[in-house]
């Protein structure tokens, strides 16, 4: 009883210290350390690559078509005589920019809608779930392509399209996570006290659903990258001459039998980024205690 009245730490500082702890936990796991390093590497590279690449990514040279690796062109040249190393280093910029903006939007709108309907329930919730089911039952590529073919492949089309379609499954995840929390007594306690829905969502639900949404966001990001590069590969993504891994692989495939170096760079770059995100998501789920298989046995 002699303790001096300690001032409680401000909520924001404490929240930051919790995420700091989670970050340390993620980095202490091999998968997290490797994954996060890969992700950070790619993000930094995407930002600085225009200043460090050896050549202009557009510079074509008819005399250098499909030449193998050399001292001047470490990864060789492509069918238009462009430097593959330069294009590989810059090939993730568009993808990272677009998915980097679309992912948070998708998680935010899907998450909030899911939490709201998870809390409120009722007829509206049942109807919403049928609509979500309906959207999920359509192949992703069809939904995206219809919009892209109609409106074009600009960034102003791709970001809303990706954010919209990838937010739909988040509704489900957020709703299920909300149901788990709503069943607990502290939500009943808040209801019985007479708090409004907004307060209950902000104070009771969001802090508890956030973990699941973070992991979900990381997974969505990797799937979105996958979708984006698949679209590029199919010729519905970035338009030439902008360098993009999916597009580069599609172009170089034709010459694979005699110039395999063309696919090597973008294949390694794209794979390492997506694997990095997945390893990070895995470690994050374990650090947050969301991985069912990792529950402590005792």
């Amino acid at each position, binding site marked *: 009883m002699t*303790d001096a009245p300690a001032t409680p730490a401000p*909520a924001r500082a404490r929240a930051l210290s919790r995420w700091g702890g989670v970050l340390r936990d993620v980095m202490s796991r091999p998968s997290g350390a490797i994954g996060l390093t890969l992700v950070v590497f790619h993000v930094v590279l995407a930002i600085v690559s225009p200043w460090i690449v050896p050549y202009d990514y557009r510079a074509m040279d008819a005399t250098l078509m499909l030449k193998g690796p050399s001292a001047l062109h470490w990864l060789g040249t492509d069918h238009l005589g462009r430097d593959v190393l330069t294009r590989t280093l810059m090939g993730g910029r568009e993808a990272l920019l677009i998915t980097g903006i679309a992912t948070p939007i998708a998680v935010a709108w899907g998450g909030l809608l899911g939490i709201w309907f998870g809390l409120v329930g009722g007829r509206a919730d049942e109807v919403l779930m049928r609509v979500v089911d309906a959207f999920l039952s359509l192949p992703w590529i069809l939904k995206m392509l219809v919009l892209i073919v109609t409106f074009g492949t600009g960034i102003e089309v791709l970001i809303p399209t990706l954010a919209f379609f990838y937010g739909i499954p988040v509704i489900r995840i957020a709703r299920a996570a909300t149901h788990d929390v709503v069943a607990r*007594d502290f939500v*009943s306690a808040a209801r019985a006290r*007479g708090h409004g829905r907004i307060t209950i969502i902000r104070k009771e639900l969001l802090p*508890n659903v956030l973990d699941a949404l973070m992991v979900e966001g990381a997974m969505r990001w990797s799937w979105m990258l996958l979708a984006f590069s698949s679209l590029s590969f199919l010729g519905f993504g970035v338009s030439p001459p902008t360098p993009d891994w999916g597009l580069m692989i599609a172009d170089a495939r034709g010459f694979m039998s005699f110039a395999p170096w063309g696919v090597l760079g973008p294949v390694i770059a794209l794979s390492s980024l997506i694997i990095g995100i997945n390893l990070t998501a895995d470690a994050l789920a374990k650090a947050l205690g969301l991985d069912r298989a990792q529950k402590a046995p005792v």
Partner: protein
Amino acid sequence: MSAPMIEVRGLSVGFTGRSGATLPVLRDIDLTVAPGESLGLVGESGSGKSTLALAAMGYLKRGLRRLEGSALYRGEDMFAKSRSELEAVRGGKLALIPQNSGQSLTPTLRIGAQLGEALRLHAGLPADRHRARVLELLGQVRLPDPEAIFDRFPHELSGGQQQRAAIAMALAGTPDALLLDEPTTGLDVTTQAHILELLREIAAERGMAMVYVSHDLGAIVRVCDRVAVMYAGEIVLQGSVRQVLKAPAHPYARGLLASIPRLSDPALPVALGGRPPAPGQAGAGCAFVDRCAIAQPRCRTEHPALTPLASGDAVRCHFPAEAQTLPIAGQGTASDDARGEAPVLTLDDLSISYSRPGLLDRLMGRAAAVPTVDDVALTVRRGETLGLVGESGSGKSTILKTVAGLLGAAGGEIRFEDTPLPGVVEQRRPDQLRRIQLVFQNPDDSLNPRQTVAEILEQPLKLYFGLSGQALLDRSTEILERVRLGAHYLDRLPGQLSGGEKQRVAIARAFAAQPDLVLCDEVTSALDVSVQAAVLDLLDELQRTQGTTYVFVSHDLAVVRALSDRVAVLYQGRLCEVGPSDKVYGLPSHPYTEVLLGAVLEPDPDVAPRLTADDVVELSPPARGCAFQRRCPRKLGAVCETDTPPWHMGAGGHAVRCHIDLADLAAAQAPAQDAVKKA
């Protein structure tokens, strides 16, 4: 004495902590159990009693490892056996009856198959006789209709039936030693008493050695000859049941006994302060030193050995003679407070129904289901505590949730003071919401794990009083101190608190609203008994200083008796009996109250439970007549099945709802009650 059946020698078990240090869970345990003898292992959660029982089978949970010592069965070390040798012994001659059989039976296998498997592994019986033997075993544990049970899946049985099936499975290999890990925890009182009687008979009949693990001394008294009391991974006291319960020589055992509420004693139990050290945190001296009333400097530096006493006990204490002076029974004050006559809460013919008829039901003209709670009329007066008792499914928590506005009522009226209370939270006025507060059973579930204690307390203070800044901080500190927690708890998360501390925070949150009525829903049933006593004491103090009215729901009749001024007994959502506690706990009683009281296990070797009714579990209340007719030992006949029984009014507001009138009930019950009065 013949060679011991089970012997544990110098056994230490531990795990590797996050820091990399080895943290012991069991420390240097020595134990022997002779053939035909039964030993009780008692202790609070975390004392290592279950770990010890499983270790006697050579089994440790994942993450735990044996540090030293051995666990012998018939002189052979279980830890030295090969996998196939272990398979031959386990479940055969050395069998386990687990806690919570509902989760210990494989959900995808029928009961018959699971028992048959045990027979095939251990009985050496020709395969064509298995079925007959399984049916015989099911009959021996007194399961009704073994043929039907044989083909059931575990989840299709009630908790008591699952436990009986697990007992039958353990008996399949005709064991000579039986380990029981909290076999009756979580069961209703009447079921628990029946299972214990069954175990007693089986033990006596077959002369098995038994190790019975429980936190409940009342259960241990029923089946054991000797008791070992465990504390922080050590045995601190060992002796005969009578000696340990009547004159224990260890301060912890005395404190534990004093903290148990007794049916025969309306006083509050005495709390045992502090909490046991976490694994690895017990210092060089006695593990109990921080909570001990007679601790000396020597106790901090010198670890006491388990020393035999003249009485035949062995005790781990430097001062066993001084320990004998500590109290072992509740000497707390009887909860007797000033209460007014003005009703705070009135329930008028309240009925609550969980199942709403769906669209399809209405189309097909199906009748509405019988309501879960029906025709409940109760009045709670200012400053009093109304205890609401009943077994699981009695609707007691449902009534609380309805009063709190979390569930809508199907019929009847709730009045708060004199104004009718709207059914659900959303329609109530802020003032009404503030004045009625609810405390939940499990603080792990009722406190948001992501909020600090400060944020938890801030919710009602901001909502009802608009406090902020320094005023909020001051008020939070004041409230915390009132529940005997300091201001340094403000920035802790619930995960950093012990069970008792969490429940105090939950109580603090309710009292932050300055309520007139606090609804307590099994608030102590998730807590250890010594912590429970502290929480009961706190609730009593808050009531005396704040003049708060309580509705206190519990399945534990002794706890209700300690705290309540008046008691209402519920069976399947129907009221059976209401009245002042001494009347309800005295004579005459409703036959259901009689059954309940008879089944209570007191931690006293001189009091035996009386089992007057079957522990049949019914799924839903009958549509007509008395709710209790199907189990009633005093059933009159057809009238009980067709007519709703009338209320008979006795002295002091005592009311019993039965077709038998009070005088006849009293006459019928007097002889049986005499046996209990003796205590």
